[in-house]
């Protein structure tokens, strides 16, 4: 990787990432007391499950708090011929898409996570499961789907936030490999 002069980085960052600077320097975490802290990567994983799960049209304040302003959410779609195509969403784009499900509940849980992290950057390679709402017949809810979340996160000194997340749901022909299952 190229060397990045510090003064250039700081100058450029001031122009390109006003959202991040505003969040990290000006907005106290206490401004959103109802949302869980994400001071560790373990807390971030727990917070993702909590923020994603629930009715499709639930309040997404805490979901937004998990992401940097310019974050991208990228589901991978597999065409009939097997070709993979990324669909790039903003945070609001994801919220709008999921809200179309209305009050239908689904639960997401990260069931096995491997992370690499150092200093201000981290990668989480996480196997997720989605389930229907728990009921009398099934306390955990019915298993609906499974796949891989691949997450890049930034630590601003107090909390981890997501900058990129991509995911691919498993298919019958390509189930999640055993090595990524609990």
């Amino acid at each position, binding site marked *: *990787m*190229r*060397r*990045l002069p*510090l003064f250039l*980085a*700081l100058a*450029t*960052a*001031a122009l*390109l*990432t006003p959202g*991040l*600077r505003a969040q*990290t*320097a000006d907005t106290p975490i206490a401004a959103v007391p109802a949302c869980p802290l994400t001071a560790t990567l373990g807390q971030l994983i727990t917070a993702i499950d909590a923020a994603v799960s629930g009715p499709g049209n639930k309040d997404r304040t805490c979901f937004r708090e998990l992401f*940097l302003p*310019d974050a*991208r959410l*990228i589901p*991978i779609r*597999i065409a009939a011929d*097997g*070709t*993979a*195509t*990324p669909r*790039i969403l903003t945070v609001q784009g994801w919220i709008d898409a999921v809200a179309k499900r209305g009050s239908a509940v689904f639960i997401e849980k990260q069931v096995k996570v*491997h992370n*690499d992290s*150092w*200093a*201000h*950057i981290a*990668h989480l*390679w996480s196997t997720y499961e989605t389930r229907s709402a728990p009921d009398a017949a099934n306390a955990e809810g019915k298993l609906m789907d499974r796949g*891989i979340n*691949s997450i*890049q996160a*930034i*630590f*601003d*000194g*107090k909390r981890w936030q997501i*900058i*990129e997340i*991509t*995911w*691919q749901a*498993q*298919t019958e022909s*390509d189930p*999640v*490999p055993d090595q*990524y299952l609990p």
Partner: protein
Amino acid sequence: MGSAGRFLLTLAGCAALFAFAASVQAQTIAPVCSPVLDAHEFVDAWTAAVIGPANRDRTCFRQLLTADARLTCAVPGKEGYPSLVVELPEEFIAWYQHHGTETFWERTLHSTVDVYDNVARVTRTYEVRSSPAGPIQSRGIEDFQLIFDGRGWRCFAMLWQDEVSGKPLPPKYEP
């Protein structure tokens, strides 16, 4: 000038024209960039596309990235708050172009790879020098989000941070 002289002149002209055309063709032939068909080989392809004179041809580098890729550098700042430098591929390449013939050389110290179907991620520790025997100029970690688009693995998000004093790379990310 006699007909023999005109013939020789024409012949010489044709030869010069042919040589010029061949020269132009040699200059415009695009380099052969082998697609990365195994995500485990991505880091080697990346290194090969990055090292060398800063103003080298970047055709192969571009082919390792999706058109809408983002390359994000975290720069530690005061009081523990980082700043982010977010660049598109052409902005990233422009940085190199501005450094003319300055040479970059780097190698991978350690890497980990996870792959599932069409998505993969690679995390690697890098070391930068100006030449293979030159002093170490910087080290750090790069994290790549990859997608297989049917023709090869490409990066659509790269996140990186240079090592800074007081925050050495952990032993587990060293060779």
